């Protein structure tokens, strides 16, 4: 087997293993809708995590995504309640999300600031803006949004997906294409592999880095729109800790935190694993939901240590 696919295979096997465990232990686990629900309940995480994948592949990190998701829900709710056309509202928040991401990318690239701190401040800023709009939750009554939220697309086997889940799948497919077949995608991998080498090779490192953060902001805004369909409300406390879940999904999906190695498909499975942990705990009924945090933390640790081992082994071989 191609050695490159090893981390991804581990992730997929882990997912299948957990699914098998669930099937054996809990009756009714193997129903199609249970698995489709993984996508439905985690659609917004999936979209955000795809954006995060590109950032981490380039060797950076984006801690502001959760806050941008929340801000998107707040802005959407506020605009809709002010009478805006739903499509115009969606377009506006997407543009704002992209602009916010690009601004962070600019600070990181132009002034050499650490991505961690820039996006941390960005997180503060976006969350703060949420509170400035309202401290309370704002329900969304717009007809279009409600219709989209309630729509169900049958996919056979007696199961159905929401619009949000379909968006998530579409985002994954587009991102896979971008990562594999476009100059931009390959440059992202190149920067993660060795920024100074990539620069000396004449690759457009600066532009690509800014674009990566722009993409992450855009993905966060899109994830926010998906969350708006899911929750039908805007609330400053939405998506608290989402950035950590996104990072966990990306790492568990086999992407190296140091950058340069990983697949978008892996992130999809990372999200599914996070989803299935919660499903398993829900099916168990006796475990409290805090176990999710602990298991996620433990998985994160395991995968990080495996990554260190992998790096040390390949450095020795070289």
């Amino acid at each position, binding site marked *: 087997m191609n050695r490159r696919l090893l981390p991804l295979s581990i992730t997929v096997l882990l997912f299948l293993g957990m699914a098998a465990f669930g099937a054996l232990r809990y009756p009714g686990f193997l129903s199609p809708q249970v698995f489709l629900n993984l996508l439905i309940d985690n659609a917004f995480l999936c979209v955000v995590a795809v954006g995060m994948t590109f950032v981490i592949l380039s060797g950076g*990190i984006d801690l502001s995504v959760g806050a941008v998701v929340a801000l998107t829900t707040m802005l959407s709710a506020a605009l809709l309640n002010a009478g805006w056309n739903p499509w115009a509202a969606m377009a506006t928040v997407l543009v704002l999300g992209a602009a916010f991401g690009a601004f962070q990318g600019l*600070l990181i690239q*132009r*002034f*050499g*600031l*650490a991505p*961690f*701190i*820039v996006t*941390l*401040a*960005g*997180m*503060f*800023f976006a*969350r*703060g*803006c*949420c*509170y*400035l709009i309202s*401290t309370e939750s704002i329900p969304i009554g717009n007809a279009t949004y409600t219709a989209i939220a309630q729509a169900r697309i049958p996919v056979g086997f007696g199961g159905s997906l929401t619009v949000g889940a379909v968006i998530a799948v579409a985002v994954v497919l587009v991102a896979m294409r971008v990562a594999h077949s476009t100059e931009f995608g390959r440059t992202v991998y190149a920067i993660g592999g060795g*920024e*100074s080498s990539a*620069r000396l090779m004449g690759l457009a490192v600066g532009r690509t880095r800014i674009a990566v953060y722009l993409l992450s902001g855009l993905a966060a805004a899109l994830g926010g729109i998906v969350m708006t369909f899911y929750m039908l409300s805007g609330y*400053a406390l939405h998506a608290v*800790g989402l950035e*950590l879940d996104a*990072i*966990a999904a990306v*790492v568990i999906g086999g992407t190296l*935190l*140091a950058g340069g190695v990983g697949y978008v498909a892996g992130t999809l499975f990372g999200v599914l694993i996070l989803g299935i942990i919660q499903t398993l705990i829900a099916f168990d009924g006796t475990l*409290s939901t*805090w*176990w*999710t*945090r*602990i298991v*996620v*933390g*433990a998985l*994160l*640790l395991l995968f*990080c*240590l495996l990554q*260190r081992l992998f790096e040390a082994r390949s450095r020795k071989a070289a």
Partner: protein
Amino acid sequence: MKRLARHALFWPTLTLLLLILVSAIFHPGFLAISWQNGHLFGNLIDILNRAAPLIVVSLGMTLVIAVRGLDISVGAVMAIAAVVAALMVGGSFSADGEVVSEHPLWLSLACALAVATACGLWNGLLVVKAGMQPIIATLILMVAGRGIAQLLTGGQIITVYYPPFFTLGNGHWAGLPAALWVAALLWLALQLLLSRTALGLFIRAIGGNPEAARVAGVRAGALTLCVYTFCGLAAGLAGLIVSSNVKSADANSAGQLLELDAILAVTLGGTALTGGRFTLAGSVLGALIIQTLTSMIYSLGVPPEVNLVVKAVLVFLVMLLQSPDFRALLAGLTRRGNTAR
């Protein structure tokens, strides 16, 4: 005046004084201090008291940042320590109506601090031995730590009924709040350690140039481990102060976002995120600035949510001013190849 301006603590001190001044202008009586109920009372005292946990955490964070590291798990460690102490103290009514504790208070506090120290050690091992990036190593504890804390409490907020437990967060010694004494003593102890041993020199060497420090024979690995361990201890202490103050332990919200405040306090105080030279006094000032800002916003009638946005803008500004590329831009020079990238 220029020499004064170049002193490391000039800008933080000025900022703090400005904030106090603005608060005093808009809120008459802001500066008033009186003696009530056997202790000092007033807005300024209040600020000092509320800032105590942040000061303690910032002291630990300063040393970690000085060795080019970072610890974002401090909030979670605070929660864990608070929960351990609250659970061990418990509090039930005895036969004659008095509240007795499950375990002796000193034991409960000691265990809580021991657990927090172990958390710090854990972080240090991941960074030094496993070679993980500090952000990710401490992220793991940040994610899992709260889960563990919530597991221990079963998702409930643990209320403590045992009065002696409240002293740390609510009591007063010699007229000043107990929490303030703890923070001040910790600061003093650290300053003594830094001036009486080679610790300060070694930390600055490791942060300034880890390779050169290593070549010069400094045991960088062992020292870094100690620094992370201490940060965990400091977080534990802060957790005890907070839970003593609110007379309960809330695994979910104790220390929430405090790691961000601590990093901000350290950077406001003048310690660079790139490591090397550091200033404990600066971090104390930074913590006071943040607390004064919060109080000022509250007393101005501005919604407290503005706090976050203001903090964010502050962080952006401080970071930009610390960036050589930005300073070069301001000075009107830009030359390609100035910073190795």
